């Protein structure tokens, strides 16, 4: 999958989630805006209510999406025979897609009515989704092989050197400038403040560094493609620098993250079972 194809793929998945979210929101806005005590008398109550034709369907569809997303991804990670079915990175992306779209459907299944034991399941889902987003951020901070294996610090240093060389080879830029630029690139991140503020501040510094390179190259009448290549390489270098810088912290964070992501997913699933069991017990079988 080329970079462009991948971007289209990701864009499509994101678009689906966003479109579905807004479609459902606008479709049922008047119902969801109605207070809980009034909803029974909303003309489309039987359609939108959690046990309604659409509401119940959303719940079932969302649940299935989540279950497929969760257990499919877990299976991919656990069972080696699945290794040949695509790269883990794409599975993760699809896992994120299903487990984003699923909760969106579940959200509209609840009709924004959060109460009872099933809300535990819902909020667990929210926690899992939120942690997923955080996890995704931590995850990308830990460089990996294409197969997803984590790279060691030494491997990273080697990558960095290769990158510096290729940056120098871009040409059209005076060597003194290179050095200057590289020195700048190696600027240490701010040490004060917590991790998040440091990361944010470092992001601002990196942007300024790249901008500076761009301006400098333009002053030297460097051709545009060269400038683009140079800035790309610089960004990669800075990113790699940052990851190397934060690798230890991120590895630690990622360990903790698992503790949040998985248990809440399990809580969600456990209560889901209770919820479904109660639903079925009282005879609410959607269209069946």
């Amino acid at each position, binding site marked *: 999958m080329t970079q462009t194809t991948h971007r289209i793929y990701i864009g499509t998945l994101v678009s689906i989630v966003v479109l579905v979210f807004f479609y459902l929101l606008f479709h049922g806005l008047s119902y969801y805006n109605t207070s*809980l*005590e009034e*909803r*029974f*008398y909303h003309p489309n109550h039987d359609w939108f209510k*959690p046990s309604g034709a659409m509401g119940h369907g959303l719940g079932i569809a969302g649940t299935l999406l989540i279950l497929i997303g969760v257990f499919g991804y877990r299976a991919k990670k656990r069972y080696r025979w699945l290794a040949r079915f695509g790269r883990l990175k794409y599975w993760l992306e699809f896992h994120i897609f299903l487990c984003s779209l699923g909760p969106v459907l579940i959200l509209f299944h609840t009709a924004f*009515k959060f*109460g*009872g*034991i*099933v*809300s*535990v399941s819902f909020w667990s889902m929210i926690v899992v989704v939120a942690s997923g987003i955080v996890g995704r951020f931590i995850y990308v901070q830990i460089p990996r092989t294409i197969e997803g294996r984590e790279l060691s610090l030494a491997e990273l240093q080697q990558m960095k050197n290769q990158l510096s060389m290729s940056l120098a080879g871009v040409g059209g830029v005076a060597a003194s400038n290179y050095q200057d630029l590289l020195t700048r690139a190696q600027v240490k991140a701010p040490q004060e403040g917590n991790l998040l503020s440091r990361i944010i501040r470092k992001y601002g510094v990196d942007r300024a560094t790249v901008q500076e390179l761009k301006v400098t190259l333009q002053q030297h009448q460097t051709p545009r493609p060269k400038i683009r290549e140079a800035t790309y390489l610089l960004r990669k270098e800075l990113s790699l620098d940052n990851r190397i810088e934060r690798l230890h912290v991120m590895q630690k964070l990622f360990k903790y993250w698992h503790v949040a992501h998985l*248990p809440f997913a*399990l*809580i969600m699933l*456990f209560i889901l079972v*209770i919820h479904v069991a*109660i639903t*079925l*017990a*009282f*005879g*609410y079988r959607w269209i069946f």
Partner: protein
Amino acid sequence: MRIASLLFAVLLLLPGMELAAQISPGDLSRAHAQLEGISNCTQCHVLGAKVSNDKCLACHDEIKSLIQSKAGYHASRDVRGKECASCHSDHHGRNFAMTRFDEETFNHRLTGYELTGAHQTTDCRACHQPDNINDRELKARSGTWLGLETRCIDCHDDGHQPSLGNDCAQCHTTTNFSPASKFDHAKTDFPLVGQHLTVACKECHATEIRQGKPVPKFSNIAFANCNSCHDDPHNSQLGTSCNQCHTEQSFTATAGLSRFNHNQTGFPLKGRHRRVDCFSCHQANLPASRIFQDKAFIPTNDCAACHADVHAGKLGTACADCHTEEGFRGRMDPYKFDHNRTSFALAGKHQAVDCRKCHVSDRMTDPLPHNTCAACHQDYHQGDFATAGRSPDCVECHAETGFSPSLFTLEDHAKTAFPLDGGHLATPCFACHLTGDKWRFKDIGNRCVDCHEDVHKGEINTKYYPLQACENCHVTTAWLGDNKFDHNQTTFALQGEHLNTACAACHQQDAEKPHGRFAGLAQACTACHENIHGNQFEKAGQTDCTRCHSFAAGWEATYFNHNLTPFPLTGKHAEVACSACHLETVVQGVATVTYKLERFECRDCHE
């Protein structure tokens, strides 16, 4: 294991939440709040079958009984057979209103009590409130729509404070309490007519105090008599049957007076008195206390008390002797009126004639000329007796006893141009004066043929009675006899006994000549007389009677001389009776005296 413990820990950490309660999808409404809790789920829910109506109705027996009795909204076609939960959902929060509908558009007809009139605009809660609910349990519920009866009295105060029963709708509509537009006074025992229709209700239905409240009295109102409501302005002098004279149209209207039974008074109305306006006799402008009292105690025969005497006192005051109530003129009793009090005493047939025959003008007492008969009677004779253009009065000939017989006597007739004599004296008048059915007295002629028929016409030669002068032969005494005809004018002059013989002895009547044969008579004696002698005296076939007999009376043989016969009479023969010799013999069955003897020997006669 690690996951399960984690899960358990999380569940425990959920602050203040009881797991069991969290199965509920939402708080139950306030009415069902006591059913919160996992142990109560199956109070309403049926495992595997959502919510069942049976479960709902197990508690809501008030609804159940309504449905079973097919009453109320829940038994209506719109609701019947629906799931309770389709309208009454729950788990929508404590403040959720389980029973909600648009009070403006709710079809109340489905409850079995259609809202009409003012009910349509009345606030629901004006009726659906505990004060109007009888059921003690429903009364205690806040906001219930149940428990109302359909009777008016359940919501409305009884404006009549129990005096008219509870069926308000008999009179009132839902549009307005007042007026009670369905009330039809015509269906009551006292239908309103006339002015009663316009009088304000309260004029009769006075306000009374019932249970401390002033209410109009509608029942048990005496109405059998007008006096129940009305004062008697006649001071009870005219009885209590007001409706005999008055109608409901107006107290002063007299239309009803015709119903008054005047016969109960001392003056029963008869004849035209029954049709006459009351105020023709009674004074109209008297106060009510004296009205109709003005003619009290007047005897029925005192006509003059009311009527003017058109006879100006000439005929006395006993009007009823002549007049009846049937009319002043009509049906006057002629037997009672004494016409002899007038200057024209009735006599004869006048006594029986209808008054109106003479009294043709409006008033009986109008002057009536009565000195001559012609004043009333027409001249039947049409001036037949007029002289110098003036007819004599009928009384000259007729009396009141009748036109016939006439007073015209024979003496009177003798003074006329045709004095009666002879048989005319015995002839009834009509024989001459009545032609057909018309009496004629003038120009009827005075010759015989003017009355009598000439029966001899064509028989007797007119030279004997020129111009049919009957008197040439006849006299008025009798047609036959006293005949003064001179027979000597004829060729057969009468002599001897012929002069004494009745004409008819010779001029005999027969079928051909019923009035006698006067022409063509033979002059021989035997033409009239019978020959009793047979052919004893025949000569040449003729018997001449005059040889022996004369015309003198008796058939004496005047001209016979016995001495001229072959046997002259001498001696004693002259003295002996003829019949001593001339014996009667019977010849051919006829007794004949034999006069011609052929043998004259003595012994032919003597022994």
